[in-house]
């Protein structure tokens, strides 16, 4: 199991005593990861911002209940719940369709390294856009496991902590999610296999 880093432990202990500055230090440290998770789950910038803010508020309200072992996994679990709630809220009151094609402004996060050549840059950008669209077709549990493991690079154990699931369940969701993405991209003709098109 991924334990809380020593610096995190100190900040968490201070936050549990009501120290807002210490909690905000944790926010600064993890807001990129939390926002990225929400953005990948929702595919909309505004919705991702709302979910991220809600996640940190919920984390602050519940920080006294945190007993370990991993603060990051605990926080990402709250973020995943906030994103799921945001998704349901938007499905109940649709202002912007979550199935709508992702616009250029929404893919700001997917902009690759501009140091690559223009052709490479355009290719990577298109691939990122396709993958994000494919992610949004997955059921929520598979989407979350794929994002946590393959996009955010968490270990199986941490994914299990963040999802409140066993290792076996994580493996199963992850493999089904990946297989579904493979089929989706094959159908769309966007899967680049070695020898056909570079993936990186």
């Amino acid at each position: 199991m991924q334990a809380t880093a020593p610096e995190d432990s100190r900040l968490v202990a201070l936050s549990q005593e009501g120290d807002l500055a210490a909690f905000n230090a944790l926010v600064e440290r993890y807001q990129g990861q939390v926002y990225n998770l929400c953005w990948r789950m929702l595919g909309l910038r505004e919705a991702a911002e709302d979910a991220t803010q809600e996640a940190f508020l919920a984390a602050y309200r519940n920080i006294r209940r945190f007993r370990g072992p991993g603060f990051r996994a605990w926080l990402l679990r709250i973020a995943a719940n906030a994103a799921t709630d945001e998704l349901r809220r938007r499905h109940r009151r649709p202002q912007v369709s979550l199935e709508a094609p992702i616009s250029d402004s929404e893919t700001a996060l997917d902009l690759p390294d501009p140091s690559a050549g223009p052709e490479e840059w355009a290719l990577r950008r298109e691939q990122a856009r396709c993958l994000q669209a494919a992610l949004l077709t997955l059921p929520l549990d598979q989407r979350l496991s794929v994002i946590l493991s393959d996009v955010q690079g968490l270990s199986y154990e941490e994914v299990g902590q963040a999802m409140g699931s066993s290792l076996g369940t994580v493996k199963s969701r992850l493999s089904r999610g990946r297989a579904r993405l493979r089929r989706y991209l094959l159908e769309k003709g966007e899967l680049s296999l070695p020898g056909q098109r570079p993936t990186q």
Partner: protein
Amino acid sequence: MRNPFVRRHPFGEEELSSYLDRWLSPAESARLEEHLASCEPCRRRLEGLRAVVEGLRALPSGPAPRSFALRPEQVEAARRQTPVGPAAWVQRAYAFSPAGVAAAALLLFFVLVGVDLATLGGEGGPQSVAPAPSAKEAFESGRALSAAPAPTPAPAPPLAAAPPTIAADEEGRGATTPEPTVGAATPTEAPATVEPPGAAKEGGDAGRWVLRGFQGAAGAVFLATIAALVWQRRRGRGVGRT
């Protein structure tokens, strides 16, 4: 009989995915590699999965578009939303494990049913629950029944006259209790000390209905908690949802 596809391609998506993450044991990996060496479709599936995983890992993770640090007024607003007093007590009560609440409700239900049955047996007593006749008695009564017409049961004495009371009659004849030696009870005092049997029965009925009301409530709490558990499981409730 196994599916011909599974027979030809024994490694499923989960094994292929675990292989990519190096989660298969050395023996399983060796078996898979041996199969891949001779199976083009499985090689293509594996390469497809590898391309997906590499594509996902290459997705850029940009910084947050703004700071999400909490401001004191946000925290204060969130604190104001947190209920205090009785509302907080209710929320804490709901914070108990639903499975525990369901188990407690079920236990209470069975305890109340047990009390109800025990009370029913006590009240019925000699009238409603007659002792079972022995085999000999049953045999003899059967012979008597076959020899003579069935006797009509003697009419039961009126309920009010059945139990002996202190005030049996005006002169005290038939009273089962000894005469008081000091200060004889006046006729007006006697009924006050012993409740009329009809009233006792009505009281017992009312008590039973109250008991059954509690039984119903416990059963309803049990069913509602189970329904809430199912709903919560479908919704995937977790940390941070308040």
